[in-house]
Every structure is written in C-alpha cells, then in structure tokens.
C-alpha cells in the first residue's frame, strides 16, 4: 500500500482520500478511524450504518463487550472500546464517569449528590447517570479546567 501526503493550503481543505480496488477490512478500519477523528461517530443499528454527530451523543456505555452510544432518540452500537473513546474524545468534553460510562459534559443538565461521595448527572433527556466516587474527582478537575 502506498502512502501519499500532500500539503493543504488551509484547514478547510484538509481531507483523507482512500483509493482502493475494493473496501477490505483494512480500508474499513482506516475509514472508521478517520471518521472517528472528526465530528462524527460511526454507529450501527442492526446492520445499518449511521454517522452520528458527536454533539448529539449524550454518553457512551459499555455493556459486556459491546459499547453503545446514546443520543436523545436512539441507541447505536459502536465498534470501538470504551477506553479508546475516552482517549479519542477527551478534548471534546467527553469524560469517564464510571467504569462503564463516558459522558458528554455539555449534555449534562445538572449534578446532584448521591450517597458516599457519589453524584448523579441529570442528562438533557432526563436520564440520570451515576458518577462513581473514583471518577468524581476527574469530573471536578475537568469542570475546573473549563
């Protein structure tokens, strides 16, 4: 596989072009990686593929081996692992709030205390997510950083 890098004149012109004979697994992976680095996330509902704007996602949740992205209306299955999502979107106001959930801070409506130094985050759709004691400190730190 050859790799060509060309300099773009402006950030608006930046793009990744994939030239392939057919979409193999490798190319699919590259495509998903590129899309993940942008403002959309590739999600699946059954066999259908969707591009979900990052700003629409309330939180990501790991259930067993599977990771799901929750928007106000739908639940999408995601191919990435939760720790990958946490790393990829940490600069987009996504932060881990428990072992199984990465939450979009901008989609939190308010916080309220729970027992034992834990908190509940009320999301914009009315759902409440538990912030565990272990991750509450990180959330406070992130909030302080702005």
């Amino acid at each position: 596989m050859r790799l060509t890098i060309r300099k773009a004149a402006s950030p608006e012109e930046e793009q990744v072009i994939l030239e392939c004979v057919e979409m193999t697994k490798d190319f699919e992976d590259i495509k998903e990686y590129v899309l993940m680095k942008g403002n959309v996330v590739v999600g699946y509902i059954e066999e259908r593929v969707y591009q979900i704007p990052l700003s629409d996602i309330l939180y990501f949740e790991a259930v067993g081996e599977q990771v799901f992205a929750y928007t106000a209306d739908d639940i999408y299955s995601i191919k990435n692992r939760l720790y990958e999502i946490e790393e990829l979107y940490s600069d987009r106001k996504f932060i881990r709030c428990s072992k199984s959930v990465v939450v979009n801070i901008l989609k939190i409506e308010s916080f309220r205390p729970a027992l034992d130094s834990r908190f509940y985050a009320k999301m914009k759709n009315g759902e409440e997510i538990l912030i565990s004691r272990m991750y509450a400190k990180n959330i406070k730190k992130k909030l302080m950083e702005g």
Partner: protein
Amino acid sequence: MREVAGKLFSNFLLIYLFLTADMAVLSGLGINPGISVGFGWEINMLARSVFLTLPGLIFNSKRELSVWETVVRRVLHFCIIELIVLFNVYFGDGVRTPKALIIVAISIFIAYLLVFLGECFLSFSEAEKMNRMLAEIKKKND
C-alpha cells in the same frame, strides 16, 4: 493495595490522636478519673485505635455498588462501629449496666448521624459548585 494501606494507616493515626485527646480531656474533666497514663494505657489506646480502624475496610471496595448496596454497606459500617465501641466500653472500661450501655449506643448513633449529615451537606455544596462550573463551561461553548 499500597493506597489502601496508606489510607488505613492515616485513619489509624487520626483515630489514635483523637482517642488519646478524648481520654485526656475526660481525665482532665474528672469524668473518668480512673485513667492512669502509662505503658498499659498506651497499649490500650493503640489496640482500640486498631479496632476502630477496621470498619474503614468496608469502604475500600473497588467495585461500583448500586444504591441499595451502598445503603447496606452504610448500615453494616454503623453496626460494626456500634459493636466495637460497645465491646470496648464493656470489657475495657467496665461499663456493665444496661442503662449506661444504651446511653453509649445512642451517643454513637447521634455522632454517626451528625457525621453523615455533615457529609451530606458537603456533598450538596460540592454539587452546587459543580453546577456553577458546568454553567460556565456551557456559556463558553455556546
């Protein structure tokens, strides 16, 4: 493991400090004039501090607990503290009358409740602070 050990040790030191200070104050006030400071008394304070540090182990679970599990853990924590303190005053201080033991038990309950209410108050003010910071972040990102 090291983190848990460090936390337990700092708890032990705090408990030992307050227990010793408490005994000194009681002795000074003449409430418990039987105290005579010496090697035996020191060992007694250290042993009591070790026992009182043990309930803290309950709070060192790494697993994320559900709301009900947290409530059960709280109740268990309180019961263990009650048992340890009552055991201490019964065998250590020779408090044997049921009336005195009931007073001690109620005092522990009140102290536990006050600490719990203090924790709740701190959590509420923490949540308020977080809500203010959240509002600022949202303003910046709008």
